């Protein structure tokens, strides 16, 4: 069951909660959702899973960007509630109507919510039932009188009828939204409609009913076939429309619209319970006719969707030219007055351009896509101020998002942490991990140099016992920097070497131990296991992932796999994830700074250092503002 439904402002004030449900949530799923999902630019995701002691919730949310409202539904993860999305959008629509920024209590919304919930639940129930009809045989038998011959042919079609049912549902939803239009029935009547249809559908479940579903399908099918196989008479009208829509996948919305109009009247037919018999009879004939061509039907299934969509597009062509005629004038007008509400289709071109720009800056494609989705979610439905272009609005939103991502979540003041560790009389342990050849040892030396400058005593631990020359390389650095190095030669277990190094550091009073590890590819299972062992055995204060700024799409893979493997292979399963990122070779990439963004987004860890040259002094902190500027340039 639904655990909780909250409505709150982006400012954080709860406007309405469902008192009726009234279950106290375990932990604080809402705050966690906001902190680790919505504020991390992951609001484009579908749902969020929250785990706490003895509670596993799934959260779904939707925004009303114009009014600055957030709607969140919480339910137990084991229950797959189908109606939650539906319910959220219904609640959004009706709450937006009564929302007033000055008003703080919405007690009267309880009643509306109850109705909406009932509606959504019943619709989901309906959907499930229609789906069940198609699936197992036993179920159908329970429902009785569907003849077996009809079953096989009808099986697929029924499942499709489920689909059309869903569309009906969409139609309903739209009607509820369009209440003010007056073209549809009032709210109550609407409810009645759905309830009666429920009755007809759910309670009786007779042959007639099933047959009716079939029949509806049949009709659709025959229409589709006609529209397609028939002498393409519709082409003169339909072709243009279909081509246009094919060219613009963005116009999917209009397609859906079409289905409602087609299906809604049919649903009305359901209400005339008297005439069902007639209909049913007719349809039986249809079924028989259809059964003969069963195998063909299966074949047709492939393009029946095509034909249907063509069928859909046909009337779409009527709307299209009109829209185009309107286009020029309204766009000029809109640019002056400011657009009413931004829609997905308006944002798409600007976002696409932005995504491409990000990708040319070497941001991983997946990340760029997710970011754009999140920006889209935050802008959809917002009012565009006058004399602003969509592209500039989108750019502004993206800039905000980027700054938010790159701003470190945890403190990156290592010196402070070092001092804290010093007070506890233990060394501060930093482990450098990463793939081969990214510059772990070089940057370890740079970090050592930086720490030395701040009067911190440093010790190196040569735990790269694998690559020949690694220990010597580190020894050279140690000699130049005049710091002690702990080494045990090659072919030793690095975890043990690190442990001994830390013990040694505790003995001789070093403040920081910098542990160098062998480079490894993220897919190399045995080496990853060794690394996991090293980290779990020694429990370092900081695990620095060293990544080169040259990396493109692979950054996502590297970091996510490292993170994953480290948490998978750890026996305790808790900490020991990557705490920070060291970005190397930053001087070689000019303006392609995207790797920084990809890495930070995927791991959630901040960039702590940036290596930008060959000498010991070439270690910097990341300048968030300049990175964002470069990314959007």
């Amino acid at each position, binding site marked *: 069951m639904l655990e909780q439904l909250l409505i709150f402002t*982006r400012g954080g004030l709860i*406007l309405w909660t469902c008192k009726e449900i009234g279950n106290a949530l375990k932990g604080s799923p*809402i705050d966690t959702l906001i902190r680790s999902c919505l504020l991390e630019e992951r609001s484009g995701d579908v749902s969020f899973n929250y785990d706490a002691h003895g509670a596993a919730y799934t959260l779904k949310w939707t925004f009303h960007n114009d009014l600055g409202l957030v709607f969140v539904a919480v339910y137990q993860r084991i229950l797959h509630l189908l109606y939650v999305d539906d319910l959220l959008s219904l609640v959004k629509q009706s709450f937006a109507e009564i929302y007033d920024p000055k008003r703080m209590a919405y007690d009267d919304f309880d009643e509306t919510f109850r109705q909406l919930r009932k509606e959504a639940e019943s619709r989901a129930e309906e959907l499930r039932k229609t789906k069940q009809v198609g699936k197992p045989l036993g179920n159908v038998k329970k429902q009785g009188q569907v003849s077996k011959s009809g079953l096989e042919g009808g099986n697929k079609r029924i499942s499709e009828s489920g689909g059309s049912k869903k569309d009906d549902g969409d139609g309903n939803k739209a009607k509820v939204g369009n209440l003010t239009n007056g073209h549809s029935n009032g709210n109550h009547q609407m409810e009645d409609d759905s309830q009666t249809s429920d009755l007809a559908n759910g309670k009786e479940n007779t042959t007639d009913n099933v047959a009716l579903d079939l029949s509806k399908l049949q009709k659709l099918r025959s229409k589709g076939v006609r529209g397609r196989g028939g002498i393409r008479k519709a082409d003169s009208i339909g072709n243009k429309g279909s081509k246009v829509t094919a060219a613009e996948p963005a116009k999917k919305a209009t397609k859906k619209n079409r289905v409602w109009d087609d299906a809604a009247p049919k649903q009305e037919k359901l209400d005339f319970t008297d005439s069902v018999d007639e209909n049913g009879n007719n349809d039986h004939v249809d079924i028989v006719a259809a059964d003969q061509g069963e195998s063909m039907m299966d074949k047709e299934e492939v393009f029946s969707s095509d034909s249907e969509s063509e069928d859909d597009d046909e009337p779409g062509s009527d709307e299209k030219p009109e829209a185009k005629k309107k286009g020029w004038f309204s766009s000029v007008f809109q640019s002056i007055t400011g657009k009413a509400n931004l829609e997905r289709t308006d944002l798409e071109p600007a976002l696409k351009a932005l995504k491409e720009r990000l990708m040319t800056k070497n941001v991983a494609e997946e990340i760029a896509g997710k970011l754009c989705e999140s920006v889209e979610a935050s802008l959809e439905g917002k009012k565009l101020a006058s004399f602003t272009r969509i592209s500039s609005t989108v750019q502004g939103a993206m800039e905000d998002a980027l700054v938010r991502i790159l*701003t470190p979540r945890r403190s990156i*003041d290592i010196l*402070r942490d070092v001092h804290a560790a010093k007070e506890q009389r233990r060394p501060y342990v930093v482990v450098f991990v990463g793939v081969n050849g990214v510059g772990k040892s070089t940057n370890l030396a740079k970090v050592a140099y930086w720490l030395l400058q701040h009067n911190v005593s440093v010790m190196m631990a040569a735990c790269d016992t694998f690559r020949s020359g690694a220990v010597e390389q580190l020894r050279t650095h140690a000699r130049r920097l005049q710091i002690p190095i702990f080494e045990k030669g090659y072919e030793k277990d690095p975890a043990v070497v690190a442990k001994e190094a830390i013990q040694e550091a505790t003995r001789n009073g070093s403040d920081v131990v910098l542990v160098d590890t062998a480079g490894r590819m993220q897919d190399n299972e045995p080496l990853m296991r060794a690394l996991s062992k090293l980290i779990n055995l020694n429990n370092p204060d900081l695990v620095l992932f060293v990544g080169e700024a040259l990396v493109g799409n692979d950054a996502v893979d590297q970091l996510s796999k490292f993170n994953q493997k480290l948490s998978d292979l750890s026996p305790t399963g808790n900490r020991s994830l990557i705490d920070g990122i060291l970005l190397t070779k930053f001087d070689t990439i000019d303006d392609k700074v995207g790797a920084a963004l990809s890495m930070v987004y995927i791991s959630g860890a901040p960039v702590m250092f940036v290596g930008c040259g060959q000498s010991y002094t070439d270690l*910097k902190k990341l300048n968030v503002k300049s990175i964002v500027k470069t990314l959007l340039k």
Partner: protein
Amino acid sequence: MDNLEDLKILAEQWFHQGVEFFQQIPPTQLYAAIGVLLLTTILLVSIRLFRRTKSNTVLLSGLSGSGKTVLFYQLRDGSTHQGAVTSMEPNEGTFVLHTENIKKGKTKPVHLVDVPGHSRLRSKLEEYLPRAAAIVFVVDALEFLPNCRAASEYLYDILTNTSVVKNKIPVLLCCNKTDKVTAHTKEFIRKQMEKEIEKLRVSRSAVSSADIANDFTLGIEGELFSFLHCYNKVTVAEASGLTGDTDQVQEFIREYVKP
């Protein structure tokens, strides 16, 4: 050259015309025009000066979960409504404080801004700092110790911010949630935070040479840090957003935004 001469003549002609035109106008009208011109400039300048000297913006800052939003609505409406969740955007409002509303008629409204405490949204604070008259830094007195370091770091950033130092913006360290029995006292919190900031001062002054943007160092060299050493005034107060015990905060606000 000819062209230049022509132009000169033309200009002289226009000048004469202008002078004649002026002589035709009655002097009273001229004076009136000049008077209006002067008045508007004076008005504009005075408005600007007025604004700069008397900002009425008070910022509510602090870590996420310390109770800023609740305090904001407590000050505005005298009610917490139905509670709050983590803020994603600042709450802003210009209003007369709730309790004053009842007592007197005319008071200067306060522009109160509740800046989200989530570390990703810290950058928002900098937008508001230049026009702030006072800052209320909210600390969770109940869950103080685990958050002590983070809170101190945030406070350190605020205290070393350029506009805070330059404008000497007063800061109130508001210990929230004191209605609970296990809450720490304000003296304890002040001492702990001073200790933390002392440590930060050491490590940050080392870092700032790299490039963290703290232009100012806090306190006096060679002495343990105390809030008394700050460039601006730092005071400590107790409050409870939940029960509406916000007298000390209101007093503080009214000290810097005169009614």
